[in-house]
């Protein structure tokens, strides 16, 4: 199986910080996987995703994305990836439709293709009504869905999702997860961070549990549950491996 992403001993320490945010992280994400990057707050998930999307520089290690090493190939990489940030990243004073037009247009979609793709996704996520309303008048769950759609428009080979379901109700969450499964079946690799273990258990084909910027364990959800004594849910594995201490991050 080909790999979508290779991370080899990646290190990143933010300037002015003593402890590394990502510490010798090594991961392999096979093509076609739904890869869960799981860990408590402050584990280094967002930092890792940001490095993979070219938003942050890193100190050492190697990464390769869609077969490209990002040294001088960000241009090629950017066409192949989709990024759904942890915080809503939309223009509040533009309508949902205008937001998607701009982001889709920038990804190279044009004319009818762009229009059809936007309408298709809006329909898929139950947002075709009210697409001409300003984002600032949307509810949190609706914004989350548009935020997700904005990363999907150009059918990216690799989709990065940073806590895409944070703060949405159960109905919206189920809809989003169902759609993500469909999208994955169409051949898109998904890297997904979360600290909702239930969600990860149903969605992910592979997971890596990280804490303190380091990998703690990797495997399939069922494999990890079977490996760890006295656990019958991913959440138990998670608590056993990361401890019950509160995280301030």
């Amino acid at each position, binding site marked *: 199986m080909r790999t979508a992403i290779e991370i080899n001993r990646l290190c990143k320490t933010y*300037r002015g910080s003593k402890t590394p945010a990502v510490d010798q992280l090594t991961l392999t994400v096979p093509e076609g996987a739904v890869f869960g990057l799981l860990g408590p707050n402050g584990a280094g998930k967002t930092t890792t995703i940001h490095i993979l999307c*070219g938003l942050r520089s890193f100190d050492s290690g190697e990464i390769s994305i869609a077969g490209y090493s990002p040294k001088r190939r960000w241009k090629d990489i*950017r066409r192949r990836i989709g990024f759904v940030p942890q915080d*809503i990243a939309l*223009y509040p*004073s*533009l309508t949902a439709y*205008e937001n998607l037009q*701009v982001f889709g247009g920038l990804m190279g979609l*044009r004319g009818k293709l762009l229009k059809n793709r936007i309408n298709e996704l809006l329909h898929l996520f139950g947002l075709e009504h009210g697409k001409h309303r300003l984002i600032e008048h949307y509810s949190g769950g609706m914004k989350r869905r548009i935020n997700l759609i904005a990363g999907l428009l150009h059918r990216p080979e690799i989709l990065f999702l940073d806590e895409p379901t944070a703060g949405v109700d159960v109905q919206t969450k189920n809809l989003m997860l169902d759609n993500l499964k469909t999208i994955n079946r169409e051949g898109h690799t998904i890297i997904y961070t979360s600290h909702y273990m239930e969600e990860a258990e149903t969605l992910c084909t592979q997971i890596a549990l990280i804490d303190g910027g380091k990998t703690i364990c990797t495997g399939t959800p069922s494999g990890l549950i079977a490996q760890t004594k006295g656990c019958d849910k991913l959440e138990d594995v998670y608590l056993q491996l990361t401890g019950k201490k509160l995280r301030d991050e």
Partner: protein
Amino acid sequence: MNGLRWLIYKDGLLLLRDKAGLCMMFLMPMLLALIMTYLQDSTFNAIHETRIPLLLLNADKDSLGMAIERQIGASGIFSVATGIDGQPAERDALIKAVGRGDFMMGIIIPENATNHIRKNVKRYVAGAFSGKNISLKSDSVQVEIFIDPVTKNSFRSTLISTLREYAVRTESDFLFREITAEVNKHSPLPAPDIRLARNKVILKEQYAMPDKAKTIPNSTQHNIPAWGMFAVFFIAVSLSGNLIRERGDGSFTRLRTMPCPYYLYMSAKVIIYSLVCLLQLAAIFLMGLFLFPLLGLPALTIGNGWLSLLGVGLCSALAAIGYGTIIGQIASSHQQAAVFASVSVVIMAAIGGIWIPVFVMPLPMQWLSACSPLNWGLEGFYDILIRGGNWRALLPECAASSAFFILCAIAAVVYDKKKRIDI
């Protein structure tokens, strides 16, 4: 290019949805231009052409009287009346009118004044040539001057010396003429007219000011380009806010993960905001051209300087965009950027001669004003509107503005890389 199109579309929409921002960028400077032109109109007139009202009773009607009347009129300092309410006045009426303050000065040139001088001179010259000793004081002429006590000393002495100069000139004219006539009587060769030898000492006046400051515009010629420049730089508030909001709402981060390099992202803003600047300038200049004359203010005249105006406008727009970008990069909150941008633009405007024109500033401030990017644009507009300069004259200002833009752009890119990617 498709990407740039979408970025322009996005920035255009963001701008159009920001109604308050648009008001600030268009209505405020237009109002300021109107109000300031109104307020300063009389001040500028005072600098230009306030004349001292002067009442002249010229009973002489001969060389001296005529010469004084002509010269006082031509000096440009006085507005000369020869009667009160169109009626010829008497001595008493003149004294009353000056006392009331209707006139700042009154002058009475007595009847036959020229004749007296002429006679005196004749007598003197004839006496001199015949070898007799004659005192000149025999029959002097008295020109009376009445002065409103509030008249400034400088005007008073200007008037007195003007009068004295013309009395002396008239007298010496007669003197020369008489001498020439006498000499011609005694000599076989005609003597040249000695009067031609006059005015060999030329007084050259110069202003001790930075070279450019000495052209003095009228209220419209100052305020239209001045508030135009202010409007152009005020976009820094909107632009820096736009940049910060875009970073804050995460959309900038999303753009970064797309095939949208920073230069493309900034190009869209440069295009949109340049357009805004040109529209602002157009609105304000059109107001000066068409609205001001209707309101009784001096109309703006541009002649055929349209293309130069466009050039200066664009360069200034670039400088303003550079300034807004750097504030938007460095400020950490929308509020901080808005306060800093607006306050700094007002200060740069004050230094740059927007509020109070450079030519009335004290000398050190005149030099300092050349450091304000608003001044570069304003001087460029002055070059076109009042100095009639061609594109060569605009080169220094346009170069300064463009260089400022380039510096700001480089600083913004470096800052962005250092503070947001390599952190």
